[in-house]
């Protein structure tokens, strides 16, 4: 076998592929061949590096050179310069936005400095479609160890000792969940992996499945052994075609290697995994709804108890865990529960993967130790707010979570602190907002999502959220009175207290937390009929500032409804009756002559 002197790792995650990283991979391979370097340089597709902001990413090993925004045509330069002449292609290096310096390798990037990658350990390191690379990275060793050397109770105890809590959002201790399921008898028990990731802006689970599918399969088998289940099901949304493709390849390879199927590693333990597809309903992330959907029924939740551990899939004892929870399991067995428990805070151990999105410089996927502060995440890893604007809030926990503000910047992030601050961990979406975001509109956005995704089974959620949305709409239109704010709060409390499942119980959170943290802003909408951030269209108007206008006609030419009039070199005017408040004029004006009032 040839010994490669250089590895070129090309990101094959969904984000980078959307920017033609697959073509880039082909081009790199071709260039390597054309230069007769096949024996020296290995080109590999890997999972997500997390630095999605600047994709497609190419990382060159061993010098860790980190190329960003690489286009298929850059393959020629990378091979000619880096592989042949040994010098990096400067124009493709990452430039630190704060220091304006080029950063030669990933070791010096602020984005990676504070991260600890456990669940994402293999993302961006191995080829997810090649089981041999997973095996080389300690793959299936945890399963082997558990099957050969541990009794189910011992293995469960190890997971309990690690302090791992469910990463899907609930934060229930994973080991305890396994223990409960292990004590229930059933003719056929099931292990289910919940890959129905549905929060807007969240893509942690997708990236793990795309970058390291075997780690989930391995953990499910361990889970099966612990609770006495021989069948595993992965419930994944059909909108994740690449994750599904890689899971299918992984399942096939694991069967060929005897790591799934009958008598795994000579232990006498049988376990196999099948995929079940979801149609992308948010409520199916709730475990009872998920199970009903897999059974072929409507994806609606049912009352707990009975818990899935007692009566789950087809009435049998079932253990449901989230993708990210599973991705942590092999490391717990390989490095020990003690090691895992040494990371994080007192009650939240290990790390958490967050999908960093919104008005932040480094949009991407990060994995940080529990207990890190928002300030570190936003300013050190995230590189600060885009365009030097002012930080306003960060939304965590998706439609079930809330907003954290400046006063929470130094709160250590863990399950309990986030709940105390009026938000929640959720599955890990983190949307950063700046001074230009209107918090009432943000709450409305999430309610719009909840109304769309409510299954309609219970009235508080079906009717209540719709009414909540309508009230928010009135506020953004300037048609609400001050008393309506009390109604809004009351209705939110009723929905929270009386809904059947987690979706309805948490759906008012975005409203309640923005009302608590941005009361002034709500007041401005209802009493002054103003939107301080200039977002709510019914409360703002665009006007030309006469002394700044030079009559360049840029605004008039770009106005989609032709409501701006004025001669060349003359002050222009906006016809307020026709204006649709799209903001195109503001964007195009180079002379600061358009104002939002």
């Amino acid at each position, binding site marked *: 076998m040839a010994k490669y002197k250089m590895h070129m790792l090309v990101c094959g995650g969904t984000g980078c592929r959307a920017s033609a990283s697959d073509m880039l991979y082909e081009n790199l391979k071709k260039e390597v061949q054309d230069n007769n370097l096949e024996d020296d340089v290995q080109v590999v597709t890997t999972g997500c590096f997390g630095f999605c902001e600047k994709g497609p990413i190419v990382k060159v090993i061993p010098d860790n050179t980190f190329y960003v925004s690489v286009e298929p045509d850059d393959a020629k330069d990378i091979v000619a310069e880096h592989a042949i002449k040994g010098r990096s292609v400067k124009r493709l290096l990452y430039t630190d936005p704060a220091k304006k310096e080029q950063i030669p390798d990933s070791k010096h990037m602020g984005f990676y400095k504070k991260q600890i990658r456990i669940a994402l350990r293999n993302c961006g390191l191995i080829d997810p479609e090649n089981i*041999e690379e997973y095996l080389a990275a300690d793959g299936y060793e945890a399963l082997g160890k558990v099957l050969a050397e541990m009794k189910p109770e011992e293995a469960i105890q190890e997971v309990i000792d690690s302090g791992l809590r469910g990463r899907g959002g609930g934060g229930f201790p994973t080991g305890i969940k396994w223990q409960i399921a292990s004590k229930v008898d059933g003719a056929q028990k099931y292990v289910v992996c919940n890959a129905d990731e549905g929060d807007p802006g969240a893509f942690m689970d997708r990236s793990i499945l795309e970058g390291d599918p075997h780690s989930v399969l391995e953990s499910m088998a361990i889970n099966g052994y612990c609770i006495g289940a021989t069948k595993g099901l992965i419930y994944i949304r059909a909108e994740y075609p690449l994750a599904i493709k890689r899971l299918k390849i992984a399942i096939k390879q694991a069967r060929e290697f005897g790591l799934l199927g009958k008598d795994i590693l000579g232990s006498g333990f049988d376990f196999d995994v099948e995929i079940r597809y979801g149609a992308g309903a948010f409520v199916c992330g709730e475990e009872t709804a998920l199970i009903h959907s897999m059974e072929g029924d409507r994806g609606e939740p049912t009352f707990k108890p009975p818990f899935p551990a007692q009566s789950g899939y087809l009435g049998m004892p079932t253990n449901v865990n989230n993708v990210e929870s599973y991705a942590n399991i092999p490391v717990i067995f390989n490095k020990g529960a003690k090691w895992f428990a040494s990371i994080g805070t007192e009650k939240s151990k290990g790390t958490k993967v967050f999908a960093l999105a919104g008005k932040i410089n480094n949009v991407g996927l990060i994995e940080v130790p529990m207990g890190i502060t928002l300030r570190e995440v936003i300013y050190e890893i995230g590189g600060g707010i885009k365009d030097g604007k002012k930080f306003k809030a960060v939304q965590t926990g998706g439609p079930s979570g809330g907003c954290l503000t400046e006063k929470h910047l130094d709160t250590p992030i863990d399950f309990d602190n986030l709940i105390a601050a009026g938000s929640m961990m959720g599955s890990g979406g983190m949307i950063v907002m700046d001074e230009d975001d209107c918090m009432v509109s943000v709450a409305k956005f999430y309610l719009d999502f909840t109304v769309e995704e409510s299954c309609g089974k219970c009235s508080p959620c079906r009717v209540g959220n719709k009414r909540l949305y309508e009230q928010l709409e009135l506020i953004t239109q300037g048609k609400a009175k001050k008393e309506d704010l009390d109604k809004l709060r009351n209705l939110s409390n009723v929905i929270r207290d009386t809904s059947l499942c987690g979706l309805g119980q948490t759906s008012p959170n975005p409203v309640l937390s923005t009302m608590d943290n941005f009361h002034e802003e709500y007041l401005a909408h209802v009493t002054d009929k103003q939107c301080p951030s200039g977002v709510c269209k019914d409360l703002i108007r665009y006007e030309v500032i006469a002394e700044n206008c030079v009559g360049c006609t840029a605004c008039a030419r770009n106005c989609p409804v032709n409501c701006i009039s004025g001669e060349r070199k003359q002050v222009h005017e906006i016809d307020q009756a026709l204006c649709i408040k799209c903001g195109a004029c503001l964007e195009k004006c180079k002379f600061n002559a358009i104002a939002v009032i």
Partner: protein
Amino acid sequence: MTKIKSLADLKKMKSDLQSKIALREKSDTPEGRTLIKVAMATCGIASGSKQVMDFLVEELDKRNVDAIVTQTGCMGYCYAEPTIEVTVPGKDPVVFGYVDTKKADDIIEKYIKNGELLEGIIPVNYETIEKNK
């Protein structure tokens, strides 16, 4: 594909496969490893640096020396090509000139393993940008 039948089989397979990604794992934790840079500009390649690099990669692996070999651009000592820079953990980088495979062998055995200095060291006559900071 034959199935893996036991934990022992799995471990054996892993050690056979490990070299596939060893380079990636090593470079992820460069601390504490010997770093060797081989100058591979036109002058270096013309003088045989590619053979030296091949030799280093093969031999370090065979002799179980924990090191990362990377290529770099021209170091400026074109008269002494092939040149390599060796950084043993905790020591300053040392540049060797006129390195052929025999010299490379000496560098591994004497300098990297035992810390003995050899003939042909090019003294440091520059400052790096990082030092000036």
